Structure formats: C-alpha cells, structure tokens
C-alpha cells in the first residue's frame, strides 16, 4: 500500500522523521518496504502489508500506529480514540439485510443539501500522492476516509436511487448492473448486491453502480459504511475480474466495528467539504462483535523467542502498541483492540513483543544435539540418487536438470501461464535427447570427446509418480538403431545405515560463457627439443583462443608429433574465418621461429 509521509504526519503532534528512517523502522519491526518515492513536497512509501495485517494496516492510521509503537512517539490524533454514537437516527432511510452471515453490519448515512464540486488542494495532493485520481469532493471524501481508516465507503445519489428502501441481498442469476466503470456486469446468484427498492445499485464490497452515481447535480446522498464477508467479496471480485481498493480490504476481513468510525469520519468530512446537513443514520448490526482477549506469559514469550525479557519489557511493548492489558503473576491478559483481528493466541503476542523490541535482540543459541536419538537414518531415495551420481560422474556423465513440463504426457496442469507444454513428462528421454543435441555442437568448446548426460528426475506414468534415472550418450555404450536414444530406469531406493563422503563442487565462481558461435582450428607440428608448444600457443594465440587442448601425440623416428586443437570465440560478436586464419598464420610463424616444424 502507498503511504504518504505528509499524511502520516497528521496523526502526530510534530512531523515524523524522514521517509528513509520510517522505511527502516517499518522494515525491521513491521513490514517490508518496496520503495520510497518523492512526490512533490511529499514522500511516498510503498509498504508491503502482510495478509495477517490487512485488517488494520491497509490504512494510514494503521501504519501511523505501527510507527508510533516502533519509534515511541504517541499517536496524538487517532480517529479510533472516540467512538461515535451515530446520531441522530433517521427513519427516512431503511436497510434490510437478507444474509446477515455475509453482511454483518450496514450503516447508511443520509446527508441533504450538499454541493458537489472540486476537492480542496490538500485533499487532491494526498490522494494523488498515493496514486489516486481526484474526482469530486464527495467521492474524494469517501476515498480519503478509506485510505485513512481502512473502512471502504460508498456514496449514492439519493434521488437517483429512486427509493430509500435499501437492501443487501444475493443477486439474481443473470441480473445485469452497470458499475461506475461504465461496464455492464452480469451477476451470479452467489454475489451480494446492494439494492434500492430491489433494483441493484452496487456490487457489495466491490463497486458502486452507475445508476446512482454522484455528479454535479447531486444534492442529497446516502453514504454506505458496511461490513461484507471476505470470502464472498473475494469470490465476487475474482469472478467479475474487478478487484478494487474496497474489495482488497474486505477480502482481508475487517472488523464490523470499523464501519462506525468510517461513517462518522466521512460524514464529518463531507459536511466540511460539501456542506449540507446530516439527516441521520441507520445502523443495522444484528450481532455486535464481542470484545476479544488474548493471554501470554513472560515465560512463554521467552520460550518462543529464546530471550530473557522481563515483565517490564513486555508491558512496555503492549503500551507502545496500544494493547490494553491486565497483569497478574506474570500473565498478561490483553484486551485486543477491535481492528487487530490478527491477535488471538499467545504466539501472536509473542510476535508483537519480538518485533517491537527488535529481532536483533534475539541471541544465536546453539541447537542442542540430541544424543539419545543416535545417528539420523539415511534416506533410501536420496542415497540411491547420490550413489548413481557418483558412479555416473566417474564414467564421464554430467548431470542435467530438464523441465518436468512436456509436449505430451499422462498428466497435465490446468492453468499454466502462456499455456505451452502443459503436460507433465512421462519419460526423461525427450529432455535428455534435446539436451544432448544442444550440447554436441559445443563439444570442442567443452573439451569433451563425447557428450554423456544423466538426469535423476520425477516422471508421471502408469498413474504413478516415479523417480527415474536416465542416461544418454553420443556414442555408446550400445548405440541403438535410432542413434542418440536415452535409456532410463526406475531409481530403486537403497537401504544403508550411513551416507558416503562424496565430493562437493570446489568451484569458486561461475564464469559467463559466450553466446556467439566458435571456430575450431587444429595445428600439428614436430616438437622442438624441450620447448613447450602449449605454453607458446596459450601465450601467442590471443584472447580469442578460449580453449587449447592436445588431441594427438605420436613419436616417429625419434621425433614427437603434437596436434593441438584451438577454440576461438568472442564474447561480443561472431568471429569470421578470415580473422581466425590471420591469427593462425601469425601463430604458425611464431611457432616456426621457436623451432617447431609445422606439419
């Protein structure tokens, strides 16, 4: 979520430290920061709010509360500090909820005599800083309060509604509604809609409807502050491919208590920006949320974290986080604020303590060896794989991994991005055969006489998932009529009591290889006394000679013949025959100079 620094400042008596400090504080005590961006006078933090904190932290208030706890700066202006009683009540608007399991609360606020117009600059700036477009003072007010408190809100034009008898019901299968994005949505019977006189005017928790959209002519409005079921909203938004800032908040599950704070904030702001008079509120809240409590002991905190914190340390964290508690003989009973739906079990409180005191205070304590258990058992599949690796490597085979996705197979995945190769392989052979073909042209570059590959991997065949060992080689051991054909067998588990001590890679760094084609030249010569031909070639063939190897050596009449293969390749271009021939000509001349006789 995009969070404006100037917006956050309004929760405190004095401006907060700079955005970099805030980013650091959040990173080590609350959330990852995806970036900090300068927007005019403002700085905007992209806060990656975790799914367990979507209840309270998809809002500037939530982030301000976190910063207050982390930086030990009291929250001076908290919209949740005082509870509004939503008065006066009105009977001009009525609300009927058909499914109270999917809509736990619906508050309607009726405001008359407003004047729709442009928003003041401060409001435009705030919304634009977090990537929102300013629309008009009324719509902006609902958006501002949503980004401020986390409560999604919506304003309807009261006249356009046609009826002030509002309802929340499941849509009729095939019911069509035009949403504010001017698109027609065909609804399904599982989707919740808001109705006025039974006509759908909004998709609950997702988007308002065009029929009751606010425009310049609007004078009377009905504001909605409601609580919709997360799963229901999530399914509806997914089915309609209409994910909105409102649906993203409902999906996380938010407290129905929040709706009252959202309504009182927005009613106040609308009047400030657009004038008018609040006629009254209707609050349908059949089963008010019960106060929640969570317990933890200081001992439990230390058992989880491996720390030696005191009761005073724990108390300090709870005070900073605004978690009211009662303490009795080491047990902290926390009265969980309504918005903190994530705090339920003792471990949740241990986490709060850990992250606020800082995970850097957790020591690194050696994990005790459990001598009683003896040596851990050997995994027979892994042992078999390790044994096969070792044997094959000794025979010159190299290990490859190829994709499990294939052109054909018995099993497939149903939703692969891009859609190509959706099958799961039933054999290692096609992958190995492809890999062999790709590697053969690089044989000289690799300095190999023959490409030999193996793979240990999973295939799906005969209705089962099995681990196979596949091998392929260019020449043998038994070339088949088809030539380069892989052979494979099931990797049978091996039961042993201890692992072999097998070698690890000793490579320090991976070296990039060129993607350009290479050119090979052979040069044969009679040796000249004790002179080292290979050293001369390496020194004189230039930087394009990436590989020099002795491929032939024989003695005749007391003379030694040496055959070297030189591989030329560039990192940035395709070499030409002409330039390689020039290098070879120069190299031959130097070798002759040193006394070698070129054959």
């Amino acid at each position: 979520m995009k969070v404006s620094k100037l917006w956050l400042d309004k929760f405190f008596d004095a401006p907060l430290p700079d955005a970099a400090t805030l980013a650091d504080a959040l990173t080590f005590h609350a959330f990852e920061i995806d970036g900090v961006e300068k927007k005019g006078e403002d700085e905007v933090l992209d806060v990656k709010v975790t799914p367990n904190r979507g209840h309270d932290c998809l809002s500037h208030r939530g982030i301000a509360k976190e910063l207050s706890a982390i930086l030990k700066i009291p929250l001076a202006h908290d919209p949740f500090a005082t509870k509004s009683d939503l008065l006066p009540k009105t009977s001009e608007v009525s609300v009927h909820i058909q499914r109270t399991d999917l809509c736990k609360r619906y508050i309607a606020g009726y405001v008359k005599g407003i004047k729709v117009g442009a928003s003041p600059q401060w409001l435009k700036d705030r919304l634009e800083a977090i990537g929102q477009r300013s629309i008009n003072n009324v719509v902006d007010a609902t958006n501002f309060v949503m980004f401020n408190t986390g409560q999604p809100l919506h304003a309807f034009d009261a006249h356009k509604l046609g009826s002030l008898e509002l309802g929340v019901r499941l849509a009729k299968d095939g019911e069509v509604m035009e949403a504010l994005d001017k698109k027609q949505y065909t609804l399904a019977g599982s989707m919740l809609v808001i109705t006025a006189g039974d006509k759908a005017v909004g998709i609950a928790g997702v988007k308002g409807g065009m029929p009751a959209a606010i425009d310049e002519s609007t004078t009377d409005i009905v504001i909605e502050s409601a609580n919709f079921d997360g799963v229901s909203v999530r399914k509806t938004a997914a089915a309609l491919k209409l994910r909105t800032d409102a649906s993203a908040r409902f999906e996380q599950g938010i407290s129905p208590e929040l709706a009252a704070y959202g309504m009182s904030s927005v009613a106040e702001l609308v009047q400030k920006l657009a004038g008018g008079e609040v006629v009254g509120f209707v609050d349908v809240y059949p089963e008010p949320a019960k106060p929640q409590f969570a317990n933890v002991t200081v001992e439990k905190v230390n058992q989880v974290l491996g720390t030696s914190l005191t009761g005073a340390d724990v108390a300090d964290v709870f005070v900073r986080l605004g978690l009211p508690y009662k303490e009795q003989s080491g047990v902290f009973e926390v009265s969980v604020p309504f918005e903190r739906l994530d705090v339920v079990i003792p471990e949740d409180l241990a986490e709060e303590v850990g992250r606020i005191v800082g995970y850097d205070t957790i020591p690194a304590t050696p994990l005790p060896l459990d001598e009683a258990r003896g040596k851990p058992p050997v995994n027979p599949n892994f042992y078999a794989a390790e044994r096969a690796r070792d044997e094959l490597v000794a025979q010159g085979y190299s290990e490859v991994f190829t994709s499990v996705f294939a052109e054909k197979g018995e099993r497939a995945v149903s939703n692969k991005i891009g859609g190509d190769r959706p099958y799961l392989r039933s054999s290692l052979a096609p992958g190995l055969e492809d890999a062999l073909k790709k590697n053969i042209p690089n044989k000289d570059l690799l300095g190999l006489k023959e490409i030999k590959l193996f793979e240990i991997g999973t295939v799906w065949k005969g209705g089962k998932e099995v681990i196979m060992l596949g091998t392929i080689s260019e020449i043998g051991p038994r070339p088949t009529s088809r030539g380069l054909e892989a052979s494979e067998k099931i990797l049978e588990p091996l039961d042993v009591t201890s692992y072999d001590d097998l070698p690890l890679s000793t490579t320090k760094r991976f070296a990039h290889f060129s993607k350009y084609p290479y050119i090979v030249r052979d040069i044969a010569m009679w040796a000249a006394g004790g002179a080292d031909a290979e050293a001369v070639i390496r020194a004189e063939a230039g930087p394009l000679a990436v590989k020099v190897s002795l491929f032939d050596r024989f003695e005749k009449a007391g003379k030694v013949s040496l055959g070297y293969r030189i591989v030329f390749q560039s990192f940035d271009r395709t070499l030409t025959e002409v330039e390689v021939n020039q290098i070879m000509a120069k190299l031959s001349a130097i070798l002759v100079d040193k006394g070698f006789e070129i054959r």
Partner: protein
Amino acid sequence: MAQEPQRGNIHPISSLIREANRVFVGMGFTLVDGPLIESEHYNFDALNVPKDHPARDMQDTFFVKDLPGHVLRTHTSGLQIRYMTEQSKKGVLPPYRVIAPGKVFRNEATDMTHEAEFFQIEGLAVGEDITLAHLKWTLAKFCGEVFKGSAEIRFRPSFFPFTEPSIEFDVRAVGDDVPEKLRGRWIELGGAGMIHPQVLENCGIDSKKYRGWAFGPGLDRIAMLKWGIDDVRLMHSGDLRFVNQF
C-alpha cells in the same frame, strides 16, 4: 597417448543439497522427500492456508488437471506436515529434526530471477525447548558452511500462515573465502519462523508441550549467490557449458 578418463560433473544444486545434507546430518537432521503432485491438504490446508483466503494469493499455484484438490507443490513446507503426521501416527513423539530439499513450482512467467520450477530446502526442528534463538544459530551455521566463512543472521518480521512469529532472514558472511560480492553485505535469503501451534495440532502433536521452527529458503538463490550465477534459467538449461563448471 594414454586416455585420461574424463570425469563428468554433478549439477550445482546437487552439490548444494549434498553439502546441506552433510551439514545437517552432523546436527542430527534426517533428510526426507515426498511427491511433487501434492494434495491441497498437505500443501495448504494443514499449513493454515484456508481456501479463499488472501494468503493463497502469496503463491501462484499450478493445479493438476483431472485431479481435483491437487497441485504441483508450491513449497517444501508440505513435507513438514507429511513427516510430523507420519511420526505422530506411529507414536514417535518429538524431538524431530528434518531437512527436506526438493523441487517446487510457481505458476509465473520466467525471467533471469524467476523460474516456474526451482528448488527449496525446508528445515524443521520440534521439541520441548526449541526457540527462535536456536533458529538463528542453525541458519548461521548452515550459511557459514555454504558461503565458506563465518555468518551472521538477521531477522525481519514477515508473515506465513504456518508460522507465528514469522520472519525473513538475511545473512552476512565474512572471511577470505566468502565470494567477494557477498563479503560483509546483508543478503536476503528466505523465510522462516516458529511453527504455528495449529499446524502442530493438525499433525497430531500437542502444541502445549512442543514447539518448533521451520525455514525454507530457495536453493537456486543460494547457488546463485554462492557461485555468482546471474540467470536462474541456466539451472534447467541442460547446458554443459554451465554444469561442467561445477
């Protein structure tokens, strides 16, 4: 001339798993494995990731056609559930010490740092007195071995439905043999945390008596850092210009 028998090479991921197993066997851990097509029960439900919950969006999942309720496993964490459930059913109570390296899948477009199939290593320790402080030490020891130096671990808050508290861990390794680009710098490595009590209960383990931690960094990422590999797609390229360097 005499033919020197040319040795082949194992894949760098295989070398890394071999090394991890060696380090963890020394600390009393058992290596376990399991199927790549996993039930939603093991991959999600038993790990506290309910259906239709935003937490499922954290991973892009491949669903298996004509096999409802099954996915290509999105992490090795399901192996925690498999192992603990199996043990508790046999009446074998903690302590448990397990590592589970293996292939996992994410349904996303591939690029230099993202692959649809890659490797993870799960680690798990359950007992009566296991703490986050033991996790810090264990990760430091493992990272020190892998990066050839002495390693320090830093935790940052995070969220996974199956751990509470959840953390991300960073490593900073020092020493002459540590790859130069890593030496002395904090590097983000992966997620971990204390196993959520509900997850233990889901496996038939008394969460009042036992606690544990789990971690699950990506092996491809560790390999890329260790050897300076810049393109994850090389791992499944089948290209010996890559493999034969290890």
